[in-house]
Structures are given as C-alpha cells and as structure tokens.
C-alpha cells in the first residue's frame, strides 16, 4: 500500500493543491495535454520507470540480437559446440568464461539463445497484441455503435469464443497447422498450413492462435465504453451536424477510448508472452531449432537436476520481462485513470 499512497500524492497536488500554487507562481498553471499529465503521473512511479528502462533495453537487445551477440563475442545460438560438452558423457556444461550461461545438451550457447529468445517473445507479444487489439477494437466499436444485429453477432461470437477452452484450442490449432500435411513431388515436404497457406507452421501459427483467442476481452470492453459514449452530447452534436458513421466512430469516439485501449493492451502484452512460452513449452509453438524461452525451459526439464543453468537463465529472462510489462502496465493504468486507484 505504500506505493499506492505515494502515487496519490502527485495526483493530489495536480488537482487539489492547484489553488495554493496560484499565489506562488501563476505561470505554473500551464495548459497540459492529457499525455503530459499522464507522463507526470507515470514518471513518479520509480519502479515502473525502472521497468520501462529495462523493457527498452530488452527491446533493443531483441532488435539488435545478432549485433549484441557479435559484440559480446558469444557464439551463434544455433551452432552446437562439441568442445563445450562434457568430454566423457557429452552432457551439458555450466557457466564458464567461454559460455557465460553454460551450454545446452547439444553444446549450444545458452546466453546467445536467451538473447535470440527475446526476439521471438517480443515479436509474438507485439504482433499478437496489435492484431488482437486492432481486431477487438474494431469489433467493439461496430457492436457498440450500431447495436442491433451487428451487436448480437459480435457479442454472441465473443460468448462462444469465451466458452472455448483457450489452451486446448491453441494446442489443437497449432498442431493442426504445424503438421506437414502432405509431401510434394520429388520428396519435398510442403507445409500448406491452415487457411490456404495464410497460417504457416511455427511463428505465424502462434501469433494467429494467440490473437484469435485474445481479442474478445478487448471487444467486450470497447463495446461497453462505446455504448455509453454514443449517448453523450458531443456525439449527438456530431450526428446532428450530419457527420458520417465512420467519422463519428473514428474521429469522435475512438480518441476517447485511448485510455482503455492502452491499458488493456499493456495488460495483454505480458499475457501473450506467457502464452507463447506455454505453447512453445508444450511443443506446439515456435519450431526448433529457433530459440524461444518457453521451448528452452521445456528442453531443460529432463536435465534440470544436473543442468540447472539451462532452465534458470531463460526462466529469469521470462520472469523479469513479464514482471516489467506488468509493472509498466499497472503504472499506465494508474496514470491514465488516477481516480480508479483511490477506491
């Protein structure tokens, strides 16, 4: 509770103590955009700020993974190094000067695999979140604004999707789309994937599956917001002016939904990261040998008692990244909606 009290103070000063400040220095009462207000509140949460710095670092590392690995002199993530294995039993060996995080059961460097794993995690996290958010927002807007049969259609679809056990659907879809369905002429294995080749096995299956099962909450929340917004005076005014539906939806209503969209998207990101890890852990996610944290953890389970490093480092990477996203998400929610915190 200490943290939340700390957070209330700046909010209080901004609104309540405004009168006092007038006497001291009137220039301080500057007009501030909602973003400026947001940032003022957000930056006071030191933990969230630290998390944000950490995330920026992770994102940079992920984008420049090959460069980072090269600069640090770490081996390629997919190259097994025979000399790093135990000379007698050919088992994984622990952290050393050549391999900071040790090597896995076939001699691949765990450090560079963790770095490359960040790419997969973040790529999936952002793309699935963008797709799920985009689709969810559009569906929510349409359902909330037009109501009637569109609303019924969207809402019932959401209900049905919510009734489907997510993980089972994900596993089913992922494995159905991942299996090489047939083999082409000349012995080539072709992978048509699902939906006429739109969803190829591996990364795209994972992104699709996660997006497909994650847009529903967003749609519900947006729909609720739109239902109340559409009765507001400024919307009626726009309507009276003869604005088109599209204009009302996207120019009048959508800007007012920024806060909930940002908040829920920020909650979605860490969920998606865990989701991807879970799918990869179960073997239906990103296909090996591409490094992914979930898959590394899964590979490490049988040898955990002897090769702790192989599970620990990807595990920590996953933990800290998800934690950081959650902290930043929380802080954003507080900053965008300061009153919600007080209850």
């Amino acid at each position, binding site marked *: 509770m200490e943290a939340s009290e700390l957070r209330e103070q700046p909010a209080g000063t901004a609104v309540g103590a405004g009168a006092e400040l007038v006497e001291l220095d009137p220039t301080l009462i500057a007009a501030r955009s909602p973003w400026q207000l947001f940032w003022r509140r957000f930056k006071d949460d030191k933990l969230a700020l630290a998390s944000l710095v950490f995330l920026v670092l992770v994102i940079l590392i992920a984008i420049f993974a090959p460069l980072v690995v090269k600069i640090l002199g770490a081996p390629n993530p997919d190259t097994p190094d025979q000399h790093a294995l135990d000379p007698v039993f050919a088992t994984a060996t622990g952290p050393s000067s050549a391999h900071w995080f040790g090597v896995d059961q076939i001699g691949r460097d765990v450090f560079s695999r963790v770095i490359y794993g960040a790419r997969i995690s973040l790529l999936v996290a952002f793309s699935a979140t963008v797709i799920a958010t985009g689709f969810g927002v559009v569906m929510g807007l349409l359902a909330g604004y037009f109501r009637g049969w569109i609303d019924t259609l969207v809402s019932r679809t959401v209900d049905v999707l919510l009734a489907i056990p997510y993980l089972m659907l994900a596993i089913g879809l992922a494995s159905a789309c991942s299996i090489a369905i047939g083999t082409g002429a000349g012995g080539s294995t072709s992978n048509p994937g699902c939906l006429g080749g739109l969803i190829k096995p591996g990364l795209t299956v994972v992104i699709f599956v996660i997006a497909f099962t994650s847009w529903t909450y967003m749609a519900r929340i947006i729909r609720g917001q739109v239902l109340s917004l559409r009765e507001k005076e400024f919307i009626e005014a726009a309507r009276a002016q003869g604005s088109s539906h599209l204009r009302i939806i996207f120019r009048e209503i959508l800007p007012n939904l920024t806060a909930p969209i940002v908040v829920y998207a920020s909650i979605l990101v860490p969920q998606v990261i865990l989701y991807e890890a879970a799918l990869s852990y179960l073997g239906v996610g990103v*296909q090996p040998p591409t490094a992914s944290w979930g898959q590394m953890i899964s590979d490490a389970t*049988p040898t955990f008692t002897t090769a702790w490093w192989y599970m620990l480092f990807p595990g920590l990477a996953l933990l800290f990244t998800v934690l950081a996203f959650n902290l930043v998400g929380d802080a954003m929610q507080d900053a965008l909606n300061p009153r919600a915190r007080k209850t």
Partner: protein
Amino acid sequence: MQLRRLRLLLPVPVLIVLAGVLSSCGGGGGSSTSSATSAIPSQFQAPTAAPSDAKSGGHLTVLAEGDIDYMDPGAAYYQFTYQMDEATQRGLLGWQPDDTTVPTPDLADGPPDISSDDKTLTFHLKSGVKFSPPVNREVTSKDVKYAIERSIMPGVANGYTSVYLGALEGFKEAQAAVKKNPTVAPNISGIQTPDDHTIVFKLTQPESAVVIQTLSLPVSAPVPEEYAKQFDAKTPSTYGNYVVFTGPYMVQNDCVSSSGKVTDPNCSGKLTGYTPGKEIDLVRNPNWDANTDFRPAYLDSITIQEGFTDPTTASQKILGGSDQVSGDFVPSKSIIQQVASGQKYSPDQMSFSPSGGNRFVALNTSEPPFNDINVRKAVIAGTDRTALRNTRGGELVGAVATHYIPPGIPGFEEAGGYGVPKDPSTGKPLDFLANPNGNMQLAASYMKKAGFKSGKCEGSDCDITMVGDNTPPGSDTATVMKDQLEKLGFNVNLQEVEHSSMYTRFCSVVKSEPNVCPNVGWIKDFNDPQSILQVPFSGSTITASPANNSNWSQLNDPTINKAIDKGVTVPADQRASYWGKLDDQISAQAPAIPWVWDNEGYVRSTDVNGVVNLFNAEWDLSFSSVTGG
C-alpha cells in the same frame, strides 16, 4: 528389425528366397562378442549370470515408455516384446543370457539333427512341457507346426517368417493357399510331424543355419490349434487376447489368481493382466515344470508398467526406488553421467551391452542433390559424426560407426572393425569416412568434384528437406545434422514429427521421402551380417514395398544388389569375409552417414540382481531376481 522403440508397423515383404548357410548350428562364422564388449569398461558390462545366492520369490516392476507390439507371439517383431516372450513362451530354441551365437535347446531336447545335404532338420521335443490354463495339455510337435503355419496368415503375419523361412518346402503353396483362404492356417508341407515329439523341417535349399536362428525367435512358440483356431478365423486374429503360455510366467488370465494359482477351471483364457499402453501383469505359470527348463525363474511376479514418457524421470524412479528395472528405453546421457559419477547412485546400477544395431543418416540417393556420389561423399566427409553420437551421449552409448555391420556380428572385423573401411576395388581406405570429427577440406574437395567450384553446395538443388524426430535425443541429432549440412552450403528445411510418423509417412514411403532422414537405424534379427545389410541396402526392398520401405537411402546399385543376392547362399565359413567385404562395398557407395554402433543401456534398483540377455539386449526376466526374495 528396426531399432528399439522403433517397431515395424507393417510386415516386411518377402524379399528374396534366402538360401544362405551359416555354420551347422550357429557357431563359427567369426563371431566377436567378446571383442565388442571390451569397448565397454568392465565396470559397466552387462551382468549375464545370476549370483549363486539368488533368492526365489519377490516382485519386479519393468518401467517402460511404450507398449509391446503384439501379445500374440506369432505376430511379435519387436525387441521389447521378445523380452516378455522370453519369460512367457518357449520356442524350439531359446537364448542363454550370455550367448549371442548358439541358441539353446528349449522345447527341443537337444540341437537339431541336420542331414548331410543340409536340407533336413529334425528336432526332438522334451516331454512334460504343458500349456498354461485353460489348455493344460502337453505340448506336441503339431503345436509348433501350427504356430509357424499361422504366422503367415494375414491376420497374424509377423515381419520375418516369410523372409527367413521361405526356403521351407511347400512355403509358396502355403502362401497361395492363405491368399485364397485367409482365415485358415495353411499347411506347409515342409514341416512334418511324424510323432508328437518329433518335428522335421524340409528345405528346398541348404540353409539350415538361418532356419535354426529363426526358430529361436517367438514364432516357434507352440500354439494349440484346437484352442486358437476360433481366434485365428478372424482377421486380425484375436488370439492375442487369449494367448496360452509355456514359459515360467504367463500373463494373468481369468483362470489364475495374481499368485499364479488356478482359481477357475471353467475359464475362457481371456487375458485379464494386459491393459494395452498401461500394464502387463505376469504371474507364475502353474503348469510350468522347472525340470524341463534352463530358466531359473526366481521371481514370483512381474509387472510391466508402461506410459513413462520421460525416460529421465523413469530412470530416476528406478535408480532411487526398489524392485525396478528399465524396459524399452535407454538412460539419457544426463542419467548416465549422474550414475557413473557415483554421487547419487551406485555406478553398478547401470550397465551396457552392444545392441547389434547401427544408426545412420540416410541420404536419398534417388534424386538431386544426393544422386551425385561426390555430393554424398562430401557430406559424409564434412559431417562431425562424433557430434551426432554425442547427441545420445559419450563413448558409453556406443562407438562412432565407420561402416554398417556392428561389433559382435560376424563380418565386423572383416569390414574394418573400429577402423576405416577399405574401398574393395582399390584397397585404399575410404578417406571420407576416415575422420570421425569431420574434415571440411576433404568435403570441399569432393564438392568441387561434384561441380561446385566454391567447395560448397550452391543452387536450388541445395535446398533440401529433412524429416526427424520431435523428441530428444532424435530431435537433437536432427538439429546437429542440420547445422552440419548448413556448413556445407545446404539450405535445410527440417520438419520434426513423431518418431513413428517419421517412418510411416516420410522416410519409409518412397514417394514422399525427404532428402535426408537423420533418425533411422537397423538392428540385427540374429547373429548374421545378412540380417544387418540385406533389408536396408538391397534395391529389391524398394520395389517390394514402396509404402513400407526400409532401404531409406534408396540405394539401388546393380552390383550391390547382385552381391546381396549371392551373399544369402554363401557357406558358413566364408560369410564373415564375404559380408564384411560387401559392407565395404556399400560404404564405398556412400549411401548414408553411419554414426553410432549402439550400446543398449540398462538401469536397475539396488535390490535387483539383474541379468541381461545379450542376444535380445534386454533384462532377462527369468534370470533376474530381487534380494528381498
């Protein structure tokens, strides 16, 4: 046989009528079991004798990953099933734990009489061997005849009867008869039973030795016709649910209690102790007479518990528990290290023996880029075969292979032993197999010979497909192989699927075979090099069954095909050198990358006096005992 955990899903087709001759009754042939086991440190050599103070009684649990292939001994063609059959069924011949060359008389009261023309074999049966309840009567020679005859019915059909017993007189007629009437076991005129205790095998060609070896497999376990006929009338036969036994143990059925006492004399014989994929309960066979058998059968009961999908966890359970041994899996390399280091478990809880098998990466020679022998040589030369072996473990899991006949099988030494095989035409060592750690320069020079000036594969033909296992260690092997191929310029599309689909949908289907199959291997049927080389490298394998092909390299070299055909009739004393040379001839064609001659690994709880059957490379359940007694 395909390797352990790799069962044959469809019967191997009739290939060639064999006419090979081993030495009279096994022996000779230059077997080298002792030199093979010497590669395993004595500390870890598999125990093959029970201690003199072994106690009777007690219970043993065998932990297994998967199920047996068939309960019906006539259909079984899988190492793990043989382990159970060896304790529950008695064929004409069986195997002492320490012998891999000469089978021991089991139902037979001695080695067969072999006619001077090597075409007639006569066995005399022991008296006093009885079927388990509900049949209860004494075994006769007719039961053995029926067992072999029914094994070519489509509803039973194992993978080997037609391959190794095809030289019996009247075999072709029997096959024709069974085609017409698949619900009745055909008569094979070459199997004759002059009286209840005599059985005579008449052959069209002098190949008694192959027949003798085959009669040590479960196909010669007697089946009572009057009882089994009703089940065999169905296709597939339902005898597997009603099997009767002759060995010291039986799968519990509705006639006996869990202590092996007869409880219901009016029973049907339906097995109650077998839940496929879960559990097999073996109890003492009340009709077994120890005086007729070479098996001591110390244990009172045995449970085979299946479904341990993670071998590491199962191994840990065995090592730290009591009264348990490993079944169909080998200990992973991390377990091997843990046990050998002696910190947590005693090193003597683990042992190894040669499996009589090999593993190789098959290169599809039927299409580009591997239809070019120089590209194949380049790939073999550039591959770090030690790295492939290391995916399964270090030296203990097996030596890095340089050719195909594994240690312990006649012809191994002649093919080059642990050294480099020689090109049979020039007499020079095959340079591309010389360096177990790979030789990139040599690889580049072969690539240049193949027309790739840069020394690396270039162009669209170098986009290749590979289908491997999706679980370790097979998936690790595939990953390492992919890395090796990419170093040589290939662009590899690796698909990981379940081990069985790898065979049945990709690598064993001629039309859909990928360029590279990294997870294939072959294990002996018995101690003869023919059972190693014939099926995986004969061109006739491909044409005989394009949908279930075990010639994964699709090697179809006329010279080799001819040499294999000729090899089946080579007399005993020349077999080792003939097949050894043939092995070199195959190696010179570079059809695959041989990378390990497997050792089979075994783990046991501290209170188990385990005995390993070297022929079958499994724990011998009728020689193992527990100290609790």
